């Protein structure tokens, strides 16, 4: 019994066929996992205080999603339908733990910064969403493409939100000071950081603004009442 919810892949297709390109391009805008599917919002709120954190989180999600999609896709004809969600969860949890172990051994400083959130990748609905909606019904290669597309769609929203939050909240980008120290306080022009940008609710507002802009430009995304 197939549990596929997406269209089955056709055989003998070029790597950059129109269909495969669509797999990567679609999630960037028309089918963005955050702004259109409204998945993975929690991490978008939590880790976007700094651009660096957003990048590491995006790369981690991409690694987990590509590997996971390919493994699930390779096993799709074997996974029993009754325990498919549990099987997906075991694979996702294993991969997340793997990423965590590797970060701790090779990029210890970064793992300390984002360590708490790496464990939370498992709760990122994009991961389970793509496993269930795409990898369970498609071949490994298109599944990898789908993973790349979706994680890039996730990444750009995270990075844009983090750019605004770090710039206005801390006056820096990627840890580099952009707003000169001399403008701050009474000695300068009285500028001070907007601490509200650092707080999670502001991330929600920023994501909301991105959704607003996106729907204003792309009217086919607007649901008809």
């Amino acid at each position, binding site marked *: 019994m197939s549990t596929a919810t997406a269209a089955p892949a056709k055989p003998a297709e070029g790597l950059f066929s129109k269909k495969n390109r669509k797999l990567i391009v679609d999630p960037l805008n028309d089918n963005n996992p955050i702004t259109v599917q409204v998945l993975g919002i929690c991490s978008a709120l939590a880790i976007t205080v700094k651009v660096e954190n957003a990048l590491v989180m995006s790369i981690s999600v991409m690694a987990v999603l590509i590997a996971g999609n390919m493994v699930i896709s390779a096993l799709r004809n074997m996974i029993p339908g009754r325990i498919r969600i*549990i099987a997906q969860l075991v694979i996702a949890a294993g991969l997340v733990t793997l990423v965590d172990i590797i970060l701790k*051994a090779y990029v210890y400083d970064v793992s300390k910064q984002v360590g708490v959130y790496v464990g939370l990748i498992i709760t990122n609905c994009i991961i389970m969403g793509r496993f269930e909606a795409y990898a369970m019904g498609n071949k490994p290669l298109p599944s990898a493409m789908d993973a790349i597309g979706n994680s890039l769609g996730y990444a750009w929203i995270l990075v844009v939100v983090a750019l605004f939050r770090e710039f206005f909240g801390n006056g820096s980008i990627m840890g580099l000071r952009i707003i000169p120290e001399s403008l701050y306080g009474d000695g300068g022009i009285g500028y001070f950081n907007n601490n509200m940008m*650092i707080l999670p609710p502001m991330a929600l507002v920023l994501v909301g603004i991105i959704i607003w802009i996106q729907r204003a430009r792309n009217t086919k995304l607007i649901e008809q009442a």
Partner: protein
Amino acid sequence: MAFDKNSNSFTFIFASVLVAVVGTVLAVTFLALKPAYDENVRREKMQNILASMKVKVERDAAPEKYKELVKETLLVDAHGKPTDGDAFGLDVLKQYKDWKANVVKAEDMKYPVYKASTDGKDLFVLPMVGTGLWGPIWGYVSVESDGRTVYGSVFDHKGETPGLGAEIATPVFYDQFPGKTITEDDGTYTSIKVYKGGTGTTDPHGVDGISGGTITSDGVHEMLKRTLAVYDTYLKSVVAPPPPPAMEALPTDSLTADSTSTSLVNP
């Protein structure tokens, strides 16, 4: 397909094999990368000890600098008396957790002391562990050779909220510590108090807490009060006592090394 993938036996076998494979992959990777991770942790500990002495080094350079500056390591017991054991190897976080879980009694706990010198000053580096809002917090405080003046400090945490409690790991918080004293002039133990509401800096024994990070700040306060009490008795035993106070010392109200106290007295 030759097998019925929805049969109970296949489901059971599939689940078992999947879990076994994932478990094996994780175990092998973990064991293969553990030495690298342990070395990172060891170097970070050296980095923290050095940072509390205001010596900033890269992680790779930490072992060499540590060897150069740290002269002696020792353990003291709960009464501040030197005792045997491997001071650097003692996992103070594990010991703290064991104490919280009633596995280790307060009087059996050991406290590492690192004697070091930098910039012509002899320092005592004192590690400590406590509990923040979401998990453990820890820190290193270096005390000058008079046994009461803080030279530097560094704090860190496992999972405090970024932008709020996590600020204890930033200079904004720990740069307030140098120059503060852990005892009154007459030797009465005061600890370093963490104040709420921005009034701490005028107190010679106080610092300001993190606004919006009250529980983490309370955790730091409790950690300092509990741990420095033990170290204070040790420091008093190795440092020449201060000159007798002009007035007679009050016989009561002196804080002893009550390391079992977990009550939080917030100023």
